[in-house]
């Protein structure tokens, strides 16, 4: 199980290592971590900490994409959740109430998406586009268009605090990753989700309740977005409805893709998506540390990501496989699934 996972995420780990080395190249102190001011302090910690929102989004996004769907609304749901949390604490509520209210809002959004997709059969990209556009408006209504600031220490702790010196967001996304992975892989949920993503008709005929599963994945996505939204708001002690989570759905999708998960649904790996999120954050880190003028930000990011995606393309993968195979006997336990993309392509 563990070795299979390692094998699956090996390419992502290699890419992550390369990008981290690029960080080291532009800033030699990159790997330096120290304990100061009661918290771990260093660029590596920043990558883990700043990667939290996209990592949290990528968990739900992985599951949604595994069902052949997509959730464009997560960025807007983050804004809503942040606004709800801020509204609760500024209205005198406690941080736990705020967190629960934000999570409820996220689940509500997830349920809305899920119902549109699973029951009304609206195409996922269209269904979630509705909330992507409308959601930010809802968030702005809650904050009245301003940055709704708050001083509740409990809530702020979720975004800017530390536990045993480790920034809370890091602990939150790692915990979320472990919990969701344990649930989908410890039960049959993962296989059933993959099944409906690969062939929904066949899955339905095999007795799988595809509606319930579809709604479930959008609920998980909404939940992740809500927590990410609370973290982002807590981090700056304010709900910024205009900017919170803006375009972050695209980073989440990118994380899933860098994680080697197919946008056509089916087999998925949450761990790989999480590493994908870290890769994206490491790329951002390279840009920030390099000191290049901001006009180059997008160009650098695009270049690095193009290289990553090209390396992961089926054709290159297959070539690499052939190279390895010709160098020595192919590893015995490899399944055709991983190593023979051509077999997939040659289907009529």
């Amino acid at each position: 199980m563990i070795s299979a996972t390692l094998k699956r995420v090996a390419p992502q780990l290699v890419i992550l290592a390369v990008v981290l080395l690029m960080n080291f190249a532009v800033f030699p102190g990159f790997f330096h971590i120290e304990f100061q001011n009661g918290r771990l302090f260093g660029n590596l910690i920043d990558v883990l900490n700043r990667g939290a929102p996209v990592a949290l989004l990528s968990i739900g996004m992985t599951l949604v994409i595994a069902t052949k769907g997509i959730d464009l609304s997560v960025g807007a749901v983050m804004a809503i959740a942040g606004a709800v949390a801020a509204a609760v604490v500024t209205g005198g509520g406690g941080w736990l109430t705020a967190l629960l209210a934000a999570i409820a809002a996220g689940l509500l959004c997830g349920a809305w998406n899920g119902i549109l997709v699973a029951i009304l059969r609206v195409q996922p990209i269209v269904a979630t586009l509705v909330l992507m556009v409308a959601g930010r408006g809802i968030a702005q209504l809650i904050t009245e268009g301003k940055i709704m600031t708050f001083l509740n220490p409990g809530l702020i702790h979720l975004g800017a605090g530390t536990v045993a010196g480790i920034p809370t967001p890091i602990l939150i996304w790692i915990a979320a990753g472990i919990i969701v992975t344990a649930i989908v892989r410890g039960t049959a949920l993962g296989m059933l989700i993959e099944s409906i993503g690969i062939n929904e008709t066949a899955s339905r005929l095999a007795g799988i309740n595809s509606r319930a599963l579809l709604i479930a994945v959008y609920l998980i996505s909404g939940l992740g977005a809500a927590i990410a939204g609370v973290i982002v708001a807590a981090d700056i002690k304010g709900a910024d409805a205009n900017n919170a989570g803006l375009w972050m759905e695209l980073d989440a999708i990118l994380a899933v893709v860098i994680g080697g998960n197919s946008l056509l649904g089916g087999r998925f790996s949450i761990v790989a998506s999480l590493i994908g999120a870290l890769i994206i954050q490491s790329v951002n880190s390279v840009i920030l540390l390099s000191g290049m003028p901001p006009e180059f930000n997008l160009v650098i990011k695009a270049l690095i990501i193009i290289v990553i995606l090209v390396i992961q393309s089926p054709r290159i993968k297959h070539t690499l496989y052939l190279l390895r195979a010709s160098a020595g006997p192919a590893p015995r336990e490899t399944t055709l699934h991983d190593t023979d993309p051509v077999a997939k392509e040659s289907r009529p």
Partner: protein
Amino acid sequence: MKLRTTLLATAVLLAPFGAMAAGAQGKTVGFSQIGSESGWRAAETTVTKQQAEERGIDLKFADAQQKQENQIKALRGFIAQGVDAILLAPVVATGWDEVLEEAKDADIPVILLDRKVDAPDDLYMTAVTSDTVYEGEVAGKWLVDHEAGKDCRVVELQGTTGSSPAIDRKAGFEKAIADAPNITIVRSQTGDFTRAQGKVVMESFLKAEGAANICALYAHNDDMAVGAIQAIKEAGVKPGEDIVVVAIDAVPDMHLAMSNGEANATVELTPNMAGPAFDALEAYWTEGTMPPKWIQTESKLYTVADDNKAIYDMKKSLGY
């Protein structure tokens, strides 16, 4: 207590305009506002209404919810009602010629607030905007004076890459420090005008340069500065003391930071665009004088020397 401070501060802030109230009494002015996408925009609306009330102007307010077609509709409505003048805060720069033409044909003067448009300048009476290059200059001059010849390594948080306020505020600041070789910008990166990015980018500045090697932060807006201040604090450094913080906009949270000693200075982008506009209208109606095509608003510098707590409370009441 709080209320009294607020009233007091409002009176102080608005005093110079209040005295002039005269020739606009009983006039009707239409105001097409973009929307309420930011606190500053909300404050602009509040101040405009206050200004109108003080001068006895009947203000007709229309919120366009970020849509140009709503603004054009509002303008046509104002023209049909036969208002005496129109204030327009345009959401985009292009596509105004036709409706401005209609206003001109109806002999209704139009004054642009806060932003300019791409239209022949005979189609509007004047534009009241701030000088964004000058704002950067004021911030830069303040830093030059504050450092008084000491070596100072500055990190800069730029606005959204390619946006005109980001370009102008950068240029103005650089112009001001050009003659001060002791002040150098060592790192400059975009924070997208947002609090969250301001914090993230400041974190990387602190690590890349080392907190001890950064003397000052210049942010293109207060939101980024407020985010950066948090990053500075989390790095165990004192903002306002160890690292000087100067920014632009003068939003309430920046005043709060200054009153806490966590920021040093900010240049105001005044929400009072309507005051100068009404002044120009009054002069036009009473004496027939045409204002210049551009009225530059004051770019007032606030520092820790001001009563920032009071200003914070007052500005909060404006709807920021």
